[in-house]
């Protein structure tokens, strides 16, 4: 029907735009690649956040953990990690294409698997806390990781790990990174799109709406919470792995665990676009990223103030976000029925 065709056209155009972008705007490849990463950030946050009601302030932990896991695995294929990091970046690995891509792939897989395991272990503890305690607890985890990795010599402490050098030209690497982020973002979107249409999707919404009720109905709430967070961790870990490779070095404070930048952006973008919806995080991430890229350098120190104000305004006055607002205005578009006629023949009809 018309709707199905429109949706198909929408998806096709986005796909085409994504593929064409680096060739049409070669000067902005890095920024557009970051856009895909931001979309991934928002989508993964929203799984446990907007859809399940567990608002995490520490999802960035998986980003950094994945980064470190990938780096360590990749380097360990070629040399002793302890010696390598002890050289404090003095010795950088130079690999050929085959070695580079093989080890990167290994690192990517390791980061995904490792982060899922971390999500399950951490989740068992964190999901025993509700609401604001979960938020603060996860923030605490991310901040702790930041501190602890800074003191851990095996992974280079405060200096971090120097990543292997890309075997080709920088322009080429940018394209590869772009492809990585684009692919991951698409994979994330398709995964959550599918998830939200299953029984699982409904279950996590139930946990959000009334967890006690869900428990009283026999739903395995802990199981669902762990799965939801694992999905987030899976994609975040890989995103981190790519980011580490792209940056050229993995450092705990600003690169791996940027709690006050990316960590908070994740939340802000989802809220802006409309948490708890499929497209909300995508729209929010796009708008946020574009505006940020355009205005950041002009605001000269006021950008953080602007960000704080944005958070306040969004949270206080525009809670439902863009998609939420759209859903309220045009509910029919989303298959939501709203009763406009008051129920006079009230209860007997029932």
């Amino acid at each position: 029907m018309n709707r199905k065709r429109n949706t198909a056209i929408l998806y096709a155009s986005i796909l085409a735009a994504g593929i064409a972008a680096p060739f049409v705007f070669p000067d902005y490849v890095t920024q557009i690649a970051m856009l895909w990463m931001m979309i991934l950030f928002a989508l993964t946050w929203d799984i446990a956040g907007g859809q399940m009601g567990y608002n995490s302030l520490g999802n960035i932990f998986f980003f950094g953990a994945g980064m470190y896991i990938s780096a360590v695995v990749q380097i360990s294929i070629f040399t002793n990690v302890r010696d390598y990091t002890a050289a404090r970046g003095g010795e950088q690995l130079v690999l050929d294409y085959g070695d580079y891509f093989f080890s990167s792939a290994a690192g990517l897989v390791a980061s995904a698997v490792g982060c899922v395991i971390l999500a399950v272990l951490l989740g068992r503890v964190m999901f025993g806390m509700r609401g604001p305690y979960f938020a603060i607890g996860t923030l605490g985890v991310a901040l702790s990781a930041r501190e602890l990795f800074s003191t851990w010599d095996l992974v280079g402490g405060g200096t971090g790990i120097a990543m292997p050098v890309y075997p080709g030209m920088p322009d080429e690497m940018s394209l590869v990174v772009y492809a990585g982020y684009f692919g991951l973002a698409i994979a994330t979107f398709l995964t959550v799109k599918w998830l939200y249409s299953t029984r699982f999707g409904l279950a996590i919404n139930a946990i959000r709406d009334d967890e006690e009720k869900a428990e009283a109905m026999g739903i395995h709430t802990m199981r669902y919470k762990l799965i939801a967070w694992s999905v987030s961790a899976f994609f975040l870990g890989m995103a981190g792995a790519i980011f580490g490779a792209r940056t050229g070095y993995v450092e705990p404070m600003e690169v791996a665990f940027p709690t006050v930048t990316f960590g908070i952006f994740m939340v802000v973008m989802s809220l802006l676009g409309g948490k708890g919806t499929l497209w909300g995080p995508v729209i929010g991430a796009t708008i946020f990223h574009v505006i940020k890229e355009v205005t950041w350098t002009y605001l000269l120190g006021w950008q953080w103030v602007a960000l704080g104000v944005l958070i306040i305004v969004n949270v206080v006055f525009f809670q439902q976000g863009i998609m939420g607002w759209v859903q309220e205005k045009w509910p029919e578009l989303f298959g939501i029925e709203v009763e406009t006629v008051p129920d006079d023949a009230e209860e007997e009809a029932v």
Partner: protein
Amino acid sequence: MLDNLSILVSIAPIFNVQLFLDGLFIGAIFVLAAYGLALVWGVMNVKNLAQGQFVIMGGYLVWDLGHKFGIHPILGLPIVAILMFAFGWLLYVTIIKYVVTRDLFTSLLATFGIGLVVEQALNLAYGPEVRTADAGFGTMAFAGGMVTVAEIKFISFALAILLAASVIVFMKKSRMGQAIRATSQDARAARVMGIDTEKVYAFTYALNAAICGAAGSLVAMIWLIQPYYGVPHSIRAFVIVTAAGLGNLPGVIMAGLGLGLAEQYSGFVIGAEFQQATVVGLLVVVLVWRMIQLAKHRQVVQ
């Protein structure tokens, strides 16, 4: 680490006194900030993530008064408290008012946003250097120079006790104090009895800001302030309140002083670079501990 530990245990145990005193003095300030956090939390169910930034803001204000007008920090303290009170009231009326009734994540993020704005504004206004408000007092030495305590620290400790005592007396005796306590127990009943809960909420938030401002003035006097030092202070306050539980004043005092001691000791024994990690690590520990406690009663940490 073992070397440091042996200093404490065998080589120069007198040094324990140094750590103990330093821990107490700074812990007293932690208690103030924690009390304010618990106040707002208990009365309005708002978990003020901007608490630490208010503290630092107080510190900068007192420094500014000294820097611009030559006002001595101790005299500046009450002025700062009043200024912060007004600031807190303003924040309530413009922002907090709208989040009191909403879900907890809303108030958490809103106060987070406020904290972000405050610390960035401080950074823009004062620059990122670390500062202290010089109170110009000397240093006392004990035990043949092994233990040195800046005189200002004693004064700060006394002021902290004085402040805490005044707030407690205020809460018990004054009409507004009683109104606050009534509202925190049952807001609807308070309203029915004629208490203007809006005013109570505004006053509470403003009072908290004032307490933070005072605490910040003390921090500026005996420690260091820097625009981004807010978050650790917020975490400390949160750790103390979570460990002690709301409405448990003696618990807050013990936990606050205990935290001060813990930080001093860990900084000395494990190393200064671990101090931040200790604070944050304690946060996770306290939350998990509390969760286990509640699980015994089949409740959840809400």
